[in-house]
């Protein structure tokens, strides 16, 4: 049995997951159940960070992964941010890095700059 705090929403439900069966208890919603199961089989996180931007009011532009990324890859993904420089203007949703590290997930801009 694995115990964990659900991070899907601020409620922070305490989940218990049966590794063998994948059964989740302690959740208050279906998303919590899905989180508990994925946390055992294939834990993932949304990455958020910044990349360089030229010509904007600030020198960094906030970005996020368009979908959760495999947790062990998060530090590697973070390093990829060093390799990109955007140019103003950008709009939220613009792709900063396509298919980051071959994950099939894009890194997208989260602020209009």
């Amino acid at each position, binding site marked *: 049995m694995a115990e964990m705090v659900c991070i899907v929403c601020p409620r922070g439900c305490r989940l218990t997951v049966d590794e063998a069966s994948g059964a989740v208890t302690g959740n208050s919603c279906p998303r919590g159940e899905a989180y508990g199961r994925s946390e055992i089989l294939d834990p993932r996180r949304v990455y958020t960070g910044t990349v360089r931007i030229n010509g904007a009011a600030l020198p*960094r532009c906030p970005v*996020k992964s368009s979908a959760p990324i495999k947790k062990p890859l998060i530090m590697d993904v973070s390093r990829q941010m060093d390799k990109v420089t955007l140019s103003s203007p950008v709009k939220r949703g613009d792709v900063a890095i396509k298919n980051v590290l071959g994950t099939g997930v894009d890194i997208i801009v*989260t*602020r209009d700059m």
Partner: protein
Amino acid sequence: MNWELIVIGAGPAGLAAALAAYDKGLRKIAVIERDRYAGGILNQCIHNGFGLHRFKEELTGPEYALRFIDRLKDTTIELICDTMVLHITADRQVHTVSAENGYQVYSADSIFLAMGCRERPRGAISIPGDRPAGVFTAGTAQRYINLEGYMCARRVVILGSGDIGLIMARRLTLEGAKVLCCVEIMPHSSGLARNISQCLKDFDIPLYLNHTVTEVTSANGRVSSVTVSEVDENRAPIPGTQKVFDCDTLLLSVGLIPENELSREAGIEIDPRTNGPVVYENMETSMPGVFAGGNVVHVHDLVDYVSEESARAGEGAAKYVLSGKTASNEVFIPITNGENVSYTVPQRVRPANVEGSIKLFFRVRNKLGASVIKVSDTSGRQLAAFRRVSMSPGEMENIFLPKDVFEKALGSLCVSASEA
């Protein structure tokens, strides 16, 4: 020019209030912001986790702010940036200063206070030791790293387990810094459980509960080490429990204080429990026509509730302006905090002004297991009760109280919580 509503601060509270007032029919609304752009502190909160409650999706801080900022252009709301409010007066004049417009005094039918809060500095907790560079509040570090693009830390100890500190533990780690530990003087974290999990546990950063920083030492003007000690039940350091961490940075996440210098100077009544204005059911302060919402009233843990509370206040302001009168302050039910409850917002309810029900926010003093929240009046009569599986001081609670509770109440209402 006379405004129907002047909003002070274009963070999440101010934007929500302005838009809600607009939706209720006000057209002459100005939002005054001291920074160069709207969005407030959300702009530096680049992590996700915002908006689940309000928008049913997970947004980052800038994205959450844009949901509101986007709407402004379809309205007549005027956003006045890079402008500082210096004073507000009882006759609802707003004194401002800016490079562009100089010293301007605006008049308004109503004012909404949305100045937010500030971080407690090192001095507020008097950590002994040297006073070198490298002691930052978590929010200052967040600004340097996320907005300005500078690393202000390489090896870090974090004091306090507030949410900003936890979020910064993860941000610093992702940017290549080494976070050695997070130290919390209380037996429980003051941040959300999900942030302990995804910001500390994910990166194997230890959390020392019942510990505090007992000394800061420096070398060549920068932090060189931080001493952490265990504390006893009176929060006094226990001799002999010191651990020394070699580091270059001490990050502080030791609490937030509502920013009410303008409110205090104007003579608005402040609640010593929250450090924010005392508010009525519609978020009106003790000064008629002056409303407040968000972190300037009490420190929230979720921006979604800031928006919700402020929208209610914006609606209150619109109603006040359009009806041309305030609810009488003569008849109100004071709400007091009983066992295990540290404060409530609102603090006063005018039953005549309640439509349907009131959402009452409060915090508990201690971590509680399965509990009952009781609402009783001065005669001791219980008028409402609610169950919770658990409660924690780090997480704001809310209950809905229907109008009839206030109509029935004799004297004041007291909110208390106890383990079942």
